[in-house]
């Protein structure tokens, strides 16, 4: 089965945008629901990706791993380890105010990146881990790409339904209350500490899943891929553009921003060849300016949060 070029690009685009949407949903649980400013998305992304990479590649590399496990085991372990890291971070940072939490999380994420780069026995260092298997690769042609798109779509749907249910549940209500007024939530007898940790860990687990999907999609991970810029920052722009607090908004923001990012790639290809090496910077500039425009003109995003009505209304 061979798809024409444009269609095959669309499949690639939708798969990658879908993975970004998973991250945007994870961040929405942390920031949109609960108001926790995590600037370390790339730490959980990397942990999910590397865990799955180490568990599912074939043996024989110079680094730890090559266990040849199936992808589903890799994803599950990535989710678990990412959640575990979040518990550890959460226990330390749970009481920090927004700005301090942002500084602390970006610091932790940078340490994770330093460790990935330098602990070569675990991660193969700067050379990265190649040959991460894609399921059904033996079918050849475009079939594996389509199957992978279906896997990402299923994962995205699952995450979406789960956290949308949680949002309408009492749990989601407490998270919103916590975001708006911590003192009042405490006065209402809620265990603020527990609810904070829960949303932080749930969001991180979802990011771990996204990281695993990313690793299998690209079949290669290296520390370079977890530049805070193309991971944490872009996911944040997606969430803010789409509308934080709104799950549909988070997904819409992911697709919209990724479309702009990909589209800008086509535009910069039209530039003269000597300017193309700097095209990456131009695209970053574009995203940065886009963010300022959104913040100034539509700070609530394309689809602002709709607070669910309580049953008694």
């Amino acid at each position, binding site marked *: 089965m061979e798809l024409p070029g444009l269609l095959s690009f669309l499949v690639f685009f939708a798969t990658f945008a879908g993975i970004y949407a998973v991250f945007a949903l994870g961040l929405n649980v942390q920031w949109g629901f609960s108001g926790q*400013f995590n*600037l370390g998305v790339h730490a959980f992304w990397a942990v999910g990706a590397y865990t799955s990479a180490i568990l599912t590649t074939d043996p024989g590399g110079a680094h730890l791993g090559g266990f040849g496990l199936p992808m589903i085991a890799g994803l599950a372990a990535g989710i678990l380890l990412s959640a575990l890291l979040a518990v550890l971070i959460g226990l*330390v*940072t749970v009481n*920090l105010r*927004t*700005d*301090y939490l*942002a*500084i*602390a999380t*970006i*610091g*932790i994420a*940078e*340490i994770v990146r*330093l460790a990935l*780069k*330098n602990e070569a026995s675990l991660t193969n260092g700067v050379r990265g881990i190649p040959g991460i298997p894609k399921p059904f690769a033996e079918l050849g042609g475009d079939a594996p790409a389509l199957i992978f798109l279906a896997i990402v779509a299923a994962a995205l749907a699952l995450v979406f339904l789960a956290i949308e249910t949680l949002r309408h549940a009492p749990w989601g209500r407490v998270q919103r209350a916590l975001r708006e007024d911590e003192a009042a939530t405490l006065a209402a007898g809620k265990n603020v500490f527990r609810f904070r940790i829960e949303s932080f860990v749930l969001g991180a687990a979802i990011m771990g899943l996204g990281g695993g999907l990313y690793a299998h999609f690209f079949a290669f991970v290296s520390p370079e891929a977890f530049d805070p*810029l193309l991971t944490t*920052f872009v996911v*944040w*722009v997606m969430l*803010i553009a789409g509308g934080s607090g709104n799950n549909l908004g988070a997904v819409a923001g992911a697709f919209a921003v990724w479309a702009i990012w990909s589209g800008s790639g086509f535009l910069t290809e039209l530039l003269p060849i000597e300017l193309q*090496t*700097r095209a*990456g*910077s*131009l695209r*970053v*500039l574009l*995203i*940065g*300016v886009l*963010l*300022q425009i959104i*913040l*100034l003109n539509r*700070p609530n995003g394309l689809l602002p949060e709709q607070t669910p009505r309580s049953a008694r209304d």
Partner: protein
Amino acid sequence: MIDILQLLVFGIVLGGIVALGAVGVSLLFGILRFAHFAHGDMMTLGAYLAFVFAGILGWPLPLGFALALVLTIAVALAIDRTIYRRLRRTAPVILLFSSFGIALILRSVIEMAFGPDTVVYDTAISTPWTVGGLRIKPDHVTILAGTAVLVAALHLFLRRTRTGKAMRAMADDPDLARVTGIDTERVIAWTWIIGGGLAAAAGMFLALDTRLVPTLGWHILLPVFAAAILGGIGNPYGAILGGLAIGIATELSTLFLPPVYKPAVAFVIIVAMLVWRPTGLIAGR
């Protein structure tokens, strides 16, 4: 022993640079209530502007530094006028996020203009002096002298001028300062002048000490935040001491840690401080 002294020298040089950045971060945090994530890239901007004058045009280094300082201040004020000022009425977290975007805008513009490769101010290699077994580069003396002059000027400004006193009052308690009739917009503008100028100087000194790459400021941002938190947010004198402490701790860490983990030192200090004593070592907020 001589090793430790040598590391102390490096630590004080790095600490002075970090301190210059941390003063701005601390004052901005105290007055505008947000962590200014673009501060590192403002340092990079200052360093590259100095490179334009001193490196490309070949003008004398002090003149290039002075011009770069003024231009960086102009850029800081322009960013505040066009963007931050309009976001001030929203939640401070929007300002923080906006500054993260500004950081990327500054860095991508620098990368487009100068490319990703390393540049240096002066191709001549300066031979270090040896003083009692210690190696000291002439650049280190320049940096330390420059830092001392700037800190002294800052001290006079904060203590002797009305604006300086108003600035300390606002950083200490913005609401109280407002009700006593302080012209807050004027103080905010002066905070950008001080913060932007010191950031530019820190960037130029850092480029003089190491090498100039577009990620120069980004990599020093965490130590700068650490210094501001260590010294107590809103306390410029604390930020200076915090900067020296961070610089020395970072360099001394190489005695027992692989040097690749040097950047982690600042972060460990941040977390320890936030958990143990979030108001800073010297009473602040």
